[in-house]
């Protein structure tokens, strides 16, 4: 008995050994950078011309500057608006498609084809996709050429020089890139619902619309919340598409996102301010993740 026990213990030290690569990599490439980022956010540390100023400890001065000059609120607002403009159609379309795909009475043919197609945009390089849309929606691009030659517009419309068309294109691209992923997640959720509930509803004479709103949707709430928060976390990281579509110069900066703001500070080597922006985003995503975490843990029980 004793021998067996010590043998098990001897094996179990391998648990630690197999964890070494993860832990070492995590500490070096994520934990230390995170601590460093937080550390720099309390310092005055930037480049002015050829001179490097700092690092001088300044307490929370960077944060005061960040929150009082208003840019951060504007860019947070931009990010949230564009996210929401993409998320609302995304959740509606995904719910609809997921309901159809998982409805056995519909027996849709070609499901694999459709699933393959709707997931495709998710794998496309966002940088190249944004460059493509930049070319397609430019004044002499194909979209304007189609609109003019078919007589819808008299002259090319400057899509990327207008606030709402620029935002809409970014939101539309986000929608295209993510609705397939959301559909598959929701479908998995719908498949998990006890089929006897649907049968009971049908025996009682419920229509498919009633079934969807009275049974499917309420039971799907946890997954919907999960999808929404993870999408919001992803939305806050929006960078490639707006950066390349607008080249960093949207009309009056109305399509500048938080990460684009951070990126500017990294390029101008303003590390103090960059650190403060990072910490601000870290706190927001931290709170959002905590909600997801609580939620997925609660779900298991």
């Amino acid at each position, binding site marked *: 008995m004793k021998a067996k026990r010590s043998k098990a213990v001897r094996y179990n030290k391998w648990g630690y050994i197999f964890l070494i690569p*993860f832990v070492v990599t*995590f500490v070096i490439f994520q934990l230390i950078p995170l601590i460093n980022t937080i550390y720099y956010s309390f310092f005055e540390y930037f480049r002015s011309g050829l001179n490097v100023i700092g690092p001088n400890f300044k307490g929370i001065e960077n944060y005061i500057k960040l929150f009082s000059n208003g840019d951060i609120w504007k860019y947070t607002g931009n990010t949230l608006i564009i996210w929401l403009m993409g998320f609302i159609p995304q959740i509606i379309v995904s719910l609809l498609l997921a309901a159809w795909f998982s409805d056995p009475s519909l027996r849709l043919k070609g499901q694999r084809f459709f699933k393959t197609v709707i997931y495709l945009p998710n794998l*496309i390089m966002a940088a190249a996709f944004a460059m*493509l849309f930049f070319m397609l929606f430019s004044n002499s691009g194909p979209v304007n050429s189609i609109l003019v030659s078919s007589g819808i517009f008299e002259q090319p419309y400057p899509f990327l020089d207008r606030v709402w068309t620029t935002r809409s294109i970014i939101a539309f691209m986000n929608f295209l890139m993510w609705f397939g992923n959301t559909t598959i997640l929701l479908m998995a959720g719908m498949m998990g619902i006890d089929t006897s509930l649907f049968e009971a509803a*049908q025996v009682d004479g419920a229509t498919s619309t009633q079934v969807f709103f009275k049974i499917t949707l309420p039971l799907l709430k946890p997954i919907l919340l999960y999808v929404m928060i993870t999408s919001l976390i992803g939305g806050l990281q929006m960078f490639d598409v707006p950066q*390349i579509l607008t080249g960093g110069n949207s009309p009056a900066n109305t399509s500048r996102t938080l990460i684009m703001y951070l990126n500017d500070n990294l390029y101008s080597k303003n590390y103090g301010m960059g650190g403060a922006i990072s910490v601000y*985003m870290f706190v927001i995503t931290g709170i959002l993740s905590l909600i997801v975490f609580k939620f997925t843990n609660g779900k298991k029980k």
Partner: protein
Amino acid sequence: MAVKSGNKRKVSKGIGIGARRAIAYVVLVLISFLCLFWFYVLFINATRSQGDLARGFSYIPGSHLLQNWNNMLHFPMISMMTGMINSIIVSLLTAALCTYFSTMTAYAIHAYDFKLKNFMFTFILAVMMIPSQVTVLGFLQLVRGMGLEDNFIPLIVPAIASPVVFFYMKQYMESALPLSLVEAARIDGSGEFRTFNSIVLPLMKPAMAVQAIFSFVSSWNNYFTPSLILHNDKMKTLPILIAQLRSADWKEKDLGVVYMAIAFSIFPVIVVYLILSKHIVQGLAMGSVKG
């Protein structure tokens, strides 16, 4: 007991099943069109000459495919071919390290009982959501401090710690890796490391394939971090070159060539995806059902 479980055709209220099916097909076709149209335009425009493109849009391919291809390869300043090779190197190595070590981490948590096991599991789940952009400032300082700017190492090695891939592997192991197998290997005198490599890894192949594809693609598409680390033209990956095309003074550029460059960086992924799509879409569902 008139309605048996398989028989659901008795929905007589609301819209009929035929009409619902028709609506579903129409919407699906429209949405598929919305997904594919842009790539069709990209393909068409990559085959057309500058003068042809200036004349407006056409639904028929042009005749300049080879010429655009040649001109793209001889772009001044921007070498798409070098970018392609760099992207392949970085993405392949990232995918290999990421899947191998994530499986190893998952195995550590799945197969062994040790004091910190639950703590580590919770910890990895907790850090899963931290976006890499949030730590990038400190990351850049670290990379500069280690003299690793213009080097692929800071793009590849961090993939060893990928909480999302770890989580997927852990989920898959719960259904696909009976611990009795590991016990049997021990009785046969196999060492723990060898057991992992020769028994666990083969059983994990389907999950590893799915995750290898995903980590390859996300590394292939990554623009933010590489653009901050790679400055030397010989080291740049495709997304950085695409961004350079955007900021270049491209009024004088041959637009057909720019379309070709975009196609060049998108189509390899599309082709691989279409070949493997069956496994990918299934694999996605597999991971999320259990999640």
